[in-house]
């Protein structure tokens, strides 16, 4: 009886140590996976923002080759988003930067070095006040600088059931150039 109890005690200790070891290994693997995921998200964000920045600065500037410093005709921030003739959620139909405002793409399968990563991206576009670049301007404010904020999240819950934001990157686009 005494030996049996000792054996059970020993098994309990071994089981506890083994589970802790497995947990430790799992955490290391998870950290490595998240690091790869972050690299993929960063690559995706950089790629997409460089593409977005290549669009026209504003609907009023589409096809315009000359510099126009008058911003009265620019789209007001309240009207950011798709315009007539463009389809929400279909960037192929977009022609200027603020068309991306409010776009949420939940079907991204980004490929980095032959490995695919399921991601979710959302876009926010806003004007920048050159005199207070850190603040969010009021609704009617217009300027010749817009900032595009791209938030990339995991599409699969990997953190105790929560989707995790893995990259938030922005790019300022000026109509000066």
């Amino acid at each position, binding site marked *: 009886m005494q030996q049996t109890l*000792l054996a059970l005690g020993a098994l309990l200790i071994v089981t506890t140590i083994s589970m802790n070891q497995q947990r430790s*290994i799992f955490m*290391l693997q998870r950290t490595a996976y998240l690091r790869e995921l972050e*690299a993929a998200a960063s690559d995706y964000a950089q790629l997409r923002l*460089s593409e977005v920045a290549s669009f026209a600065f504003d609907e009023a500037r589409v096809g315009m080759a000359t510099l126009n410093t008058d911003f009265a005709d620019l789209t007001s921030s309240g009207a950011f988003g798709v315009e007539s003739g463009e389809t929400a959620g279909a960037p192929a139909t977009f022609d200027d930067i603020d068309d991306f405002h409010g776009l949420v793409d939940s079907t991204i399968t980004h490929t*980095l*070095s*032959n490995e695919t990563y399921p991601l979710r991206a959302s876009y926010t576009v806003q004007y920048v006040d050159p005199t207070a670049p850190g603040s969010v301007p009021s609704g009617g404010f217009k300027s010749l600088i817009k900032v595009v904020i791209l938030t990339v999240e995991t599409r699969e819950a990997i953190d105790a059931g929560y989707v995790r934001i893995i990259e938030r990157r922005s790019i300022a686009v000026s109509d000066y150039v």
Partner: protein
Amino acid sequence: MQVILDHLAALIIVSVLVLIFALLQVRGVQSASETTVNAMVRGATLDISFMLEKDIANMRTEAQATAGGISTSGGLWCSTTASGDTTLTFSFVTLSDPYAPIDAANPDSTALSLVEYRLVREPGASVSRQMGAVTQTHPLYRLERVIDFVVTGQTQPYVTFFDVEFAQRGIAAFTPTSTTTCPTELTRVRFQLQMAQEGIERIAADQLSNSQLNFSRYGSTIDLPNWE
């Protein structure tokens, strides 16, 4: 003998426990080694990638290369060669000193060099990756940085994938590396790099599940406002 027989069950249990402890110890040591190797490979991947990013950001146009005294005959000033989806060489003209200041009054006075990033196959070396029932085998390469035909740096021979793509002004999509010379109005360059980890051994069935982590990957898109 009597003592041994009396405690046979206890001895068997102790033996099994010692064996389990030994296995746990081996797995623990291996896990720690893998973590260290993973960090080292990650560092190596980022080192060469950041160098390439800087060189690409300093890329010169054909006219600038000519003004800087670099011969552009044969398209060497900006070209790639590829095999399948893997870029084998990527040559372009860039600043000799990546951090050199540019004289605004005489921008062509900054020294230029022809840089080539090239994959060199490590003879007979490959790494395998288990994907369920399928085993993928990747040949291993070194990525060399060659300045004016002299090798100035290289990675360890664990590169498994390298790809360079170009995008032109007004065209969002990137063209694959089958392009042999850089397109006109090049505005963006994208590259992807993958390196394998050294010394990963499978000692238990459950390690198959983490085989995707035995690689380190990096990708970057560089804008070229200089080319606009």
